[in-house]
Structures are given as structure tokens and as C-alpha cells.
């Protein structure tokens, strides 16, 4: 019998031959020494090599598994990172919102209608303003008179919050009127109805109607607000800026000084100057002040103003707080027929 090929013999070793061939090859191998030697040599060669294998220590496999473990936790890590990112984003969002709210609360003018002014509060709020301004006033006697007047106002106001005060003082008129005698005094107040009455022949008449739930601060001069940067450049006395609005302090200006007594906005200090340019009586209703402050609120919410900056809001002759663009490009409109040639300047300190 012819010896089978090495491939057949190897397949016979591997038991990969068909059953019919296995017996035939087996019979041949038993008789053929060469084929038997070949098979034995092949088996020995492979067996000794296979059996020479020694498994590594179990610790090596543990190490390998531990190195795989992080990879198997890949998605979990991604989930963890994703969750951490979401938490961080939420935290940052809350932080930004909180800071924004805080900033807004600091930079906004909040009209606290629920705050009831006490006598002491009113005096505390008013007196420093008066004193500071009186220091800058050349004529001290008039200032003293005015202090008395204002204190009298406060006293009366605190006792009867809804009372309308009429202040008549010849000296005030002389001092606070310009050469044309068309400038009355200024009164600062919040949530109060304020009437300015000024005529050439009559003394300056300041009517302060203080209503309930008053947040109040008052100033009494046409002097610049203490510490405030008055004016934004432009023309001289009586000059008009954009939209016919005065952009520079003049002694004709009547300025209102407001420093918020409300705790919520203590850190926001600004001055509102009402600049009137005529001799007419201007009546600023409480509702108008609310509207004005709400407008300033919205402006402050949209833009941050630095100390020394000013914001000019115009009041046109139609009685609207300017339908024109103001220096800050703000369009505001509060129908108020009694307004005329009047502007509001907000100074930020």
C-alpha cells in the first residue's frame, strides 16, 4: 500500500478524516514503520510544546482584569461625567441667575410701597442731604431757613402722611431763583406727589403731598447733588442737548436728589435731577414717579451704569416723557400733560 500523504496523516492525527478513511489509515499506520514514526514524531513534537505551557499567576490575571475594569466602566464614567457636567451647568446657571438677580436688585430702583416711613427715618434721610448741600451753599441763612422748612415738612409729613404741605419762603425764592426768577426749589421724594409751583412774582411754592407707604428723601436746592457728577457735558446754562434737553448743570436746573432709603437698594445710589425750563407748574404724580422709576429699573436691568455716568430721560412738550431718543437712546413715554420742557437726569454714583 502506498503511504498516504503527510496531509492525510496529519488529518488522521487530528481526527479530521471521514470515518471511512480513518479505519483505512489506521490499518496502514499499524503496518508502516515510516508513517508510524512520522506520526509519533509529530505527536511528540506538538505534545511537548503544548504541555510545556505554564499558566501565569492568578494575580497577573487579576491585574489584567483590573485594567479592563476601567474600560468596562467607560460608559459609567461617561455617565458620571455627564451627570457632573449637568450639575455644574445647573450650579453655574443658578449662580448666574442669582448674581443677575442680585445685580438687578442692587442696580434697580425698587419702590417699596409697603415701607412706612417713621418720623426718625424721614429726618435721618433728609438731614444729611440738607447739611451737605448747605455746606456748599454760600448763603447759609437761607439754607438754615430751608432746613427748618424741610424739617417742618417732614414733621408734618410724618404726622400726617397724606397731608399736602405748602411751603412759602421769600428767601428761598430769592436764593433759588435765577435771574429770570423762574426756578423754584427742588424736593426729592419717592412715592410722593410733588408739585412745583413757581411764578415770577410769587415766592417759590413747593407742595409736597406725601402719601402713605412713603420712601422719602428730600433735597432742597438747585445745587448739584452731593458727591454726584452733575451734567454730561454740552452747552452752558440752559443749553439743550439731544431733544432739547439740557445736558449740563445750570443754576436754572432744579435737581432732585434721591438716595434710596430702601434696604433692598441701598447699594445703588443715584441722583435724579428734574430739569425744568419753564415757569409753569409741574405736577408729578405718584403714579408717574412709579412709572419713571420702573423705566429706570428696566434701563438698569439692561445696562450697567458706572459711577459718574448719567442717564438723561427727556420729557417733551407734549407731556410725554420723551418720545424722542434720549442721550441713552431710550424711548420712554409717560403721558403727562403737565410736563413741559422737562427732563430727568439720573446720575449714578
Amino acid at each position, binding site marked *: 500500500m502506498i503511504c498516504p500523504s*503527510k496531509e492525510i496523516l496529519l488529518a488522521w492525527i487530528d481526527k479530521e478524516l471521514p470515518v471511512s478513511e480513518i479505519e483505512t489509515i489506521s490499518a496502514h499506520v499499524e503496518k508502516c514503520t515510516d508513517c508510524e514514526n512520522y506520526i509519533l514524531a*509529530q505527536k*511528540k513534537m506538538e505534545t511537548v*510544546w503544548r504541555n510545556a*505551557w505554564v*499558566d501565569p499567576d492568578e494575580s497577573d490575571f487579576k491585574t489584567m482584569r483590573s485594567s479592563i475594569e476601567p474600560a*468596562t466602566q467607560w460608559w*459609567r464614567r461617561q455617565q458620571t461625567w455627564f451627570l457632573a457636567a449637568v450639575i455644574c451647568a445647573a450650579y453655574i446657571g443658578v449662580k448666574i441667575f442669582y448674581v443677575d438677580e442680585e445685580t438687578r436688585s442692587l442696580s434697580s430702583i425698587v419702590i417699596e410701597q409697603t415701607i412706612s416711613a417713621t418720623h426718625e427715618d424721614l429726618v435721618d434721610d433728609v438731614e444729611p442731604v440738607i447739611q451737605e448741600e448747605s455746606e456748599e451753599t454760600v448763603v447759609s441763612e437761607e439754607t438754615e431757613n430751608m432746613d427748618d422748612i424741610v424739617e417742618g415738612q417732614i414733621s408734618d409729613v410724618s404726622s400726617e402722611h397724606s397731608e399736602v404741605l405748602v411751603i412759602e419762603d421769600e428767601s428761598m425764592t430769592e436764593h433759588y431763583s435765577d435771574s429770570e426768577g423762574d426756578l423754584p426749589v427742588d424736593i426729592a421724594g419717592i412715592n410722593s406727589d410733588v408739585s412745583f409751583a413757581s411764578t415770577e412774582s410769587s415766592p417759590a411754592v413747593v407742595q409736597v403731598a406725601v402719601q402713605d407707604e412713603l420712601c422719602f428723601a428730600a433735597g432742597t436746592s438747585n445745587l448739584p447733588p452731593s458727591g454726584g457728577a452733575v451734567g454730561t457735558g454740552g452747552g452752558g446754562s440752559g443749553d439743550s442737548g439731544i431733544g432739547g434737553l439740557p445736558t449740563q448743570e445750570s443754576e436754572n436746573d432744579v435737581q432732585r436728589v434721591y438716595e434710596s432709603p430702601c434696604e433692598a437698594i441701598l447699594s445703588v445710589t443715584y441722583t435724579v435731577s428734574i430739569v425744568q425750563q419753564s415757569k409753569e407748574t409741574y405736577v408729578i404724580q405718584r403714579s408717574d414717579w412709579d412709572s419713571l422709576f420702573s423705566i429706570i429699573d428696566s434701563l438698569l436691568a439692561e445696562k450697567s451704569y458706572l459711577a459718574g455716568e448719567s442717564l438723561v430721560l427727556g420729557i417733551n412738550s407734549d407731556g410725554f416723557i420723551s418720545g424722542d431718543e434720549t442721550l441713552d437712546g431710550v424711548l420712554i413715554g409717560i403721558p403727562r400733560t403737565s410736563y413741559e420742557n422737562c427732563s430727568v437726569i439720573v446720575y449714578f454714583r
Partner: protein
Amino acid sequence: MIFHLVYFLTAGLSASEPELLEKAVSGNKEAFGEIVKMYEKRVFRVARRMCNCDDDAWDITQEAFIKAMKAMHNFKVEYRFFTWMYRIVTNTAINFSRSRGRRSEVEFDEGYGSGGLTSTADTAIKECNRDLLVKAVQKAIEQLSPALRIVFVLRVDQELSYEEIAESLGIATGTVMSRLNRARNSVKIFVVNELGCAP
């Protein structure tokens, strides 16, 4: 609660391979961990046989299991996992060896020595020192091309059937037989020459 705890602790122990595979396919990492334990020695052994270097073998083993884990969702449970795993480790090992640069692989002519080897050579092998023979065989395997080497390893070392080798490597059974024959022949010639008993 206790029932769930006991179930959790014993789930991996009591689960059969098909159950573990189903869980692993569905993304159960614990089940895949159990599968790793079941196959790690065999996978490492193939890797070690292919590269003949412990460090490389561990790297290949780790990479193979990571690949398997990432591709586990593509595994179809009706197929044999070990052949799928062998293919992964084989490809990984081959790519690894390629990245390290080809070694001096000797492609023996199929006809070379097939008729030249005599019974003297077989007798020498039978009488050869075991350790020397092991070293000679190992050295001969290192000279094989990866295509031949893997067939030799899967058959001789892992004792897979031709069909399983064909399935693992994605080749025909006839190709397996052909490559295996060439590999064995080459190894034997190398060993005979190494032992100094060539005709």
C-alpha cells in the same frame, strides 16, 4: 431585600455561559466580567503563543477583551463565543505583531523537505530531549508567518477542530488544512535543522 441580595451575589456564579452571554450582550458588565474570567487564560495563551512575549501578550489580551466588550452588543448568541473571541485576539495579535515590525518569518516551500525528511529525522525527534524540543518548536513557530502561526496555534495548542479554526479565522476548512499542513511541515523542518539531525 435579602432575596435580591442573595440573587445578586449568586447570579454570576450560577449563570451558565449562554445566560452570561445574553446578559453581556444586553450590556451587563458583571456578566461580561464573568466571561472574561472564563476565557482569560485561553485568550492569554493564544496571545502569548503568537507573540512569545509576556508583556505583549498581556497587552494583546487586555486589548482583545476591551474590543470584545465594546463589540459585545454585535455578538449573536447563536454563534460560539470562543470562536468570536479567538478571532478578536487573533486579529489583535496579528495587528500587534505588525505594529512591532515583522520578524524574520521564513516561508518554507511546501515541497521543501516534505520528501526530504527521512525516518531518521523522526527518530531524532522522538529521542530528542524534551526541553530542547520545546525550544526548537517554539523557535520554529516564531519563524512562521502570522497566518500560518495562528492556524498552528489554534490547532496544536488550543486543539480546535478545522471547522472551529475556519470559523475563528473566517476562512474555509480546506484553507485551514492547507495552512496547517504548511505550518507543520515548516516547523518540523526548522526543528530538524535546529536539532542538527537534518538528513
